[in-house]
């Protein structure tokens, strides 16, 4: 009798457990800005969007483009048109139907809404034609292969046309993703609830997701350890061992699309007129004085990935024939002597985060052995951006969060027509421009790789940027969280996630 009672109790309790609402609490590194894919600016906002807004296409862990709201696609008219077939039976979270008209509305909104941050990403799109209810045709002004990758990010996010028209969209976003918006308290939390009519609802297991912005990485980890959070992003590399040793926690990491390097002022005002800015031998000497592996070990406990290109070594577009140069202090000294600059004084502007400052100090020590006198200028981030754009720097230690398509990591930093605030070095070469344009014009990976190889030959020799390392996405989570897969774009995709 006792056994039967116990079994009954177990059945009831497990049923109750199953019925109770599951909440996943995610600690973010910052508070996202506007929750409108067209206007959004921050990287961290993309993590919230991953749960809120489906995109036309997505990426897999190997950066291949895979279907999401579009089920198939084909390039046409000499790569000047992209035809997409759309998924049937998809509705927005307000019950509106997702169809070709909604796609046309969204792309036109990206292109025309004042202040749109997406316009620059898809400005090759001339028009969107509705072929039929489930088919759209993107007509381009020029061949533009990176378009697909752009559509796998915010430019491909589809919002409800009805909700987008009411003027308060960013406060109450409505998309077609697995979770719908519930509430936002600025700087405190963003709450989402499962969308019951999601087209892929079998892949969604958690009832609610609460995003909590906690900028300090130590406090974020403390919250995870104390059970106030279930999953955190951007674990500090020096805390990874703590996470690994904690039996209550699980660790996950993956390569990112990001890089950090030293941008050198080559032609941006009077501060470029010094040996470093004018003589490629001095820049080569600086690169040769740095031991990237040691830098990674000392500053990031070896958790990041040393690199010498705009994409990480495990990216399919990495140029294998150009490996990371080894440290060679003797050769660096020779180069400085040949350049008649045996002890160049270099001012290195560094955003004043602890991590960047640590890296700058290691670079300073390493470069000193070759003869460089590096003067570190710790600068608040927004100020450094302004100084970078104005050319008020000699060298600038700065990172880029990265884009899925390699074009997003190089074009805006090396093309003559790049935004002045990004191409702070004011690097400009007609030859590079031609190769970058050619790489945009084809969707054939081998052909693009050949163009990028030519770009790399030149850029890595001219060194407008000395690429140093690629951060990794580091996550920690409670052992109760299952089904988590890290992606190179750093987004937390809720599909498949469970709290056990």
């Amino acid at each position: 009798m006792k056994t039967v009672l116990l079994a009954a109790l177990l059945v009831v309790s497990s049923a109750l457990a199953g019925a109770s609402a599951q909440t996943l609490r995610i600690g973010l590194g910052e508070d996202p800005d506007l929750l409108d894919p067209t206007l959004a600016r921050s990287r961290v906002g993309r993590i919230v969007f991953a749960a809120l807004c489906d995109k036309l296409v997505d990426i897999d862990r190997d950066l291949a483009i895979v279907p999401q709201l579009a089920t198939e696609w084909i390039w046409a008219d000499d790569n000047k048109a992209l035809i997409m077939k759309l998924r049937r039976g998809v509705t927005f979270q307000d019950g509106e139907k997702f169809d070709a008209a909604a796609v046309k509305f969204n792309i036109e909104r990206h292109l025309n809404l004042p202040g749109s941050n997406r316009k620059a990403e898809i400005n090759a799109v001339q028009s969107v034609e509705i072929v039929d209810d489930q088919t759209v045709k993107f007509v381009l002004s020029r061949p533009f292969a990176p378009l697909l990758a752009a559509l796998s990010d915010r430019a491909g996010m589809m919002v409800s046309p009805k909700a987008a028209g009411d003027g308060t969209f960013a406060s109450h976003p409505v998309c077609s993703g697995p979770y719908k918006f519930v509430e936002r308290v600025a700087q405190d939390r963003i709450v989402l609830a499962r969308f019951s009519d999601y087209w892929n609802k079998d892949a969604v297991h958690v009832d609610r997701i609460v995003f909590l912005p906690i900028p300090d990485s130590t406090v974020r980890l403390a919250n995870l350890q104390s059970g106030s959070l279930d999953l955190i992003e951007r674990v500090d590399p020096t805390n990874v061992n703590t996470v690994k040793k904690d039996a209550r926690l699980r660790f996950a990491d993956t390569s990112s699309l990001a890089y950090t390097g030293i941008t050198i002022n080559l032609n941006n005002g009077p501060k470029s007129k010094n040996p470093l800015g004018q003589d490629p031998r001095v820049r080569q000497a600086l690169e040769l004085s740095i031991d990237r592996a040691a830098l990674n070990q000392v500053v990031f406990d070896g958790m990041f990935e040393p690199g010498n290109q705009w994409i990480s070594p495990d990216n399919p577009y990495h140029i294998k024939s150009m490996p990371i140069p080894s440290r060679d202090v003797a050769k660096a000294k020779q180069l400085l002597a040949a350049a008649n600059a045996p002890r160049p004084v270099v001012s290195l502007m560094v955003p004043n985060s602890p991590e960047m400052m640590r890296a700058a100090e290691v670079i300073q020590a390493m470069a000193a052995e070759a003869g460089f006198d590096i003067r570190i200028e710790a600068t608040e981030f927004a100020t450094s951006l302004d100084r970078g754009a104005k050319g008020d720097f000699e060298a600038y230690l700065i990172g880029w969060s990265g884009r899925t398509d390699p074009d997003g990591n190089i074009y805006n930093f090396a093309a003559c027509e790049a935004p002045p605030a990004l191409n702070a070095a004011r690097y400009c070469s007609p030859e590079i421009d031609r190769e970058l344009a050619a790489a945009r014009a084809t969707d054939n990976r081998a052909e693009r790789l050949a163009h990028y190889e030519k770009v790399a030959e030149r850029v890595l020799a001219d060194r407008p940027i000395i690429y140093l390392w690629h951060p990794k996405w580091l996550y920690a989570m409670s052992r109760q969280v299952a089904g988590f897969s890290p992606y190179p774009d750093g987004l937390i995709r809720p599909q498949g996630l469970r709290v056990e």
Partner: protein
Amino acid sequence: MGAWLLRRVALIGPTLLLVSLLIFAMQQLLPGDPALALAGENQDPAVIAHIRQTYHLDRPIPVRYALWLEGVLRGDLGQSIRIQRPVADLIAEKLPVTAELAGLALLVALVIGVPAGVIAAVKQGSVIDHSVTLAALCGLSVPNFWLGMLLILLFSVELGILPASGYVSPGESITRNLTTLIMPAIVLGTAFAAGIMRHTRSAMLQVLSADYIRLARAKGLGEARVVLRHALHNALIPVVTVVALNFGALLSGAVLTEQVFTIPGFGKLLVDAVFNRDYAVVQGVTMCSALAYLLLNLGADIAYLALNPRLRP
């Protein structure tokens, strides 16, 4: 008294105007272009131009100030560029959080500071006096963020009895509200307690050597009655003033504490706005702080007069 009060209240308006001018001018001295800071990673020139135009960043500084002032007179403090919400709404949302934190911190400070000051004065020169003074020195010297991290590690990570950060409104749950605020209130209140203790101690020492205290003792009153009824009452007059005047310091101290404990209050709003160059928010928050400071000063003066009738005009 009435005329004096009226004069003081009438001065608030011009003072605020002067403060607003100063804040506006100082904001312009901040390095960095707000349009670049707000344009996001893409740094699209079209977006940068749009931000400049929408938020009048392309207009001369005096015109921008006039536009802002005109808005304030209409009751519009402007809009946050970063999250596109009215500044007044943000302030209304965040101010109660910080006020509650500052109130709790004050309570912590008074509960620790006043008794410690009284004991130190009564036991002047003893081991207790030196110990209390040393503790006060530690309270003043320990940085907020460091103490905050230690408390988080002990009570949240090791013992698991308090949440490491965040905020729950009292309307949602009063228990959870207090559990989220207890550590920040201790951190913020400790340094303040040290100051209160030192003021109480010196005021008590002065009062305890007064003739009327000697008379009270000569009359055969018990020591407890002498200290608590006769001495403390008068010693608290300057302490109350110091507390009221320094309450504003609690608001500014909350800036750091709110960062450590991720409390979505006034201080965190201000820090984030400064880093993001969200000028309308910076201007609105600092104006609101200035108003609070002026009102607290006025309150302190009124309290001082109420407690010490000899000073009444």
